[in-house]
């Protein structure tokens, strides 16, 4: 393992790549600081620029953008009480009261240290577990991969959306969109309506930027501007007690985040909230809870869980080629644009490159820790700039990003169309995550299904691993429907009692 890390470090440690990592951290934090935008939008908007670099430099910059985006969200939550995204909710709930007490610096430092710790441990976890899973996955045939894809689609549809019907219909739409263009086997045009323009198909980049960039930005632009108050930063160094109190929540958050992050649909934001809830319950049981009024444990645990889950998601992504949510789907899309195919071979044939990717996570975390704390006053000022000032420029960056992929004006229109559709989906409570998963996994689903049926007409009875994955997928659907029914019943009871 140490050999792998050393090889990766040797690949990364050049002035040029360090410069890209620094730029990535800066740009990622810039996006994360803006209310309403988070790491997913940051990756969606900026990753086309990284495709102009060599693959490893691109990945280094992308990792830095992702972590910068996550850190930026916590910064605005702690300093100006604006949780720009769900994952930053705990940071606002516990961090802002600390800011009011003049302990903003300590809250930010603990958030950064917890994220950093989870990032380091998570990276080591990916190296250890990813390699083992990849070697196991080498024995997987098309039926097993088909089972895995079906499980990933149903898990994301069930966990991320409230309605299984809506989730699965969006996944089906994603699958169909991925098929528009020329069919690889027969050469026939599929769902093009006879037009040449559609025959080139929908590329990943403009669709992703449209859904997570344009859609989010247009939505944020049409919301009321906030009035953020300035707050003193206070000392950056946490006290000994604060540090001591945050050790155990950081360890727990890292373990919980990483292990749950391996499951498709368990997004980092969900893990941050669950960790907050668990830490709160634990503190209340023990007594002396300050939760709700600036408890450092409520920052350390969720921040670690958030980063741990993000790292956990890299295990199925790199070893099996299965993303666990929208951000991992974007990373998968980026790797494919770089000409890499995530899967077991990433740890066998491309081991050095994969080590480089994993070390780039460590480097990004270190740079963020060093770079962002001194820059906190600047980020705080930026967070107070109304979004309608920066928003239009970000919109243009999105459209340029869509254009850069294939130098195609058609892609710019696809990007804008996807953005408007994302806005409509938000109003109609239709989840985007299953759509993205369907779009990314659609070709794999079709290919593995075709190969499995060619192998045997009754493959589903002959392959126990496929049966296990299919069984879990059915259980996920059943659980999702049961959860929804329970929710409706409890609402009815509440109405009746009131």
């Amino acid at each position: 393992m140490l050999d792998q890390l050393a090889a990766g470090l040797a690949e990364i440690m050049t002035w040029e790549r360090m410069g890209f990592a620094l730029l990535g951290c800066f740009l990622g934090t810039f996006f994360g600081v803006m209310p309403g935008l988070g790491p997913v939008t940051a990756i969606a908007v900026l990753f086309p620029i990284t495709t102009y670099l060599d693959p490893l430099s691109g990945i280094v910059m992308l990792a830095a953008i992702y972590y910068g985006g996550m850190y930026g969200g916590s910064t605005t939550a702690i300093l100006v009480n604006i949780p720009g995204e769900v994952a930053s909710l705990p940071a606002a709930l516990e961090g802002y009261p600390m800011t009011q007490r003049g302990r903003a610096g300590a809250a930010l430092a603990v958030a950064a240290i917890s994220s950093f710790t989870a990032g380091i441990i998570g990276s080591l976890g990916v190296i250890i577990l990813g390699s083992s899973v990849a070697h196991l996955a080498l024995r997987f045939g098309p039926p097993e991969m088909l089972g895995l894809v079906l499980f990933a689609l149903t898990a994301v549809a069930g966990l991320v959306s409230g309605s299984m019907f809506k989730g699965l219909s969006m996944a089906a739409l994603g699958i169909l969109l991925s098929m528009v263009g020329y069919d690889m086997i027969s050469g026939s045009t599929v769902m093009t309506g006879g037009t040449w323009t559609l025959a080139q198909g929908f590329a990943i980049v403009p669709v992703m930027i449209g859904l997570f960039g344009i859609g989010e930005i247009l939505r944020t632009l049409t919301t009321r501007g906030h009035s953020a108050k300035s707050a003193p930063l206070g000392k950056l160094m946490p006290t000994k007690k604060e540090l001591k109190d945050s050790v155990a929540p950081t360890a727990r958050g890292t373990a919980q985040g990483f292990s749950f992050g391996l499951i498709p649909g368990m997004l980092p934001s969900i893990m941050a909230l669950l960790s907050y809830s668990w830490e709160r319950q634990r503190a209340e049981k023990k007594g002396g809870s300050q939760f709700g009024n600036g408890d450092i444990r409520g920052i350390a645990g969720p921040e670690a869980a958030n980063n741990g889950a993000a790292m956990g998601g890299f295990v199925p992504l790199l070893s099996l080629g299965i993303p666990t949510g929208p951000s991992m789907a974007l990373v998968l899309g980026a790797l494919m644009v770089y000409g890499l195919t995530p899967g077991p071979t990433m740890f066998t044939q491309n081991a050095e490159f994969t080590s480089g990717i994993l070390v780039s996570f460590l480097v990004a975390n270190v740079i963020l820790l060093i770079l962002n704390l001194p820059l906190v006053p600047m980020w705080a000022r930026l967070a107070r700039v109304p979004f309608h000032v920066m928003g239009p420029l970000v919109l243009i960056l999105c459209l340029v990003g869509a254009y850069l992929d294939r130098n195609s004006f058609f892609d710019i229109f696809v990007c804008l169309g996807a953005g408007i559709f994302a806005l409509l989906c938000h109003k109609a409570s239709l989840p985007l995550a299953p759509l993205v998963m369907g779009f990314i996994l659609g070709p794999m689903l079709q290919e593995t299904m075709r190969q499995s049926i060619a192998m045997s007409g009754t493959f589903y009875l002959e392959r126990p691993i496929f049966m296990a994955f299919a069984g879990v997928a059915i259980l996920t659907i059943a659980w999702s429907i049961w959860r929804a029914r329970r929710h409706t019943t409890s609402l009815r009871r509440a109405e009746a009692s009131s």
Partner: protein
Amino acid sequence: MALRRIWGLSWAELSATFLLVIAGMFALADGLRLLTRGSQAASWTATFIMVAGVILAALAAVSLIPFSRKAAAQSVGATVAQDVLTESEETSDTEPFAVLDESVPPKQAQKLLIRSIGLLISWIVLLPYIGYIAATGLFLLVYGLLVSERKIIPTIIFAVISTALSAWLFQAVGVRLPRGSLLP
């Protein structure tokens, strides 16, 4: 209209579902076309898209009817977030945070949205003719004045600096942007 009234659906729900059903039917029709007119090799793809199309149309339609709407809850993330906020409200002395969900009045939001999309389409149309720098500078200027309703001098300064900075950033990473066919 009747569906909206009877089932209490919003325009967005109805139009998004309508789009999904249309997409499903389109896939079904294209699958039939491939099956009847395409080569033997295309029959697998045809069957696949027909099945996916039927699933899409059926699930989207079913998601509207009251039975399935009863079998819908919030997402896991939203449920946990709500629990966290409810618990926090009971114990916290701090003022509630500034949420972004304080929507502007619907008419104003609609106006903002239409103007934003209109300006974006104008930018796309102008890009091949006047190039990135002129199109972006113009877009930011008009956006600042018409949509954000800011003062003219700061808007001009912001438009010039942001366009120059973004063009420099793209050039720094080796990106070639359209220069405009109408410009020398």
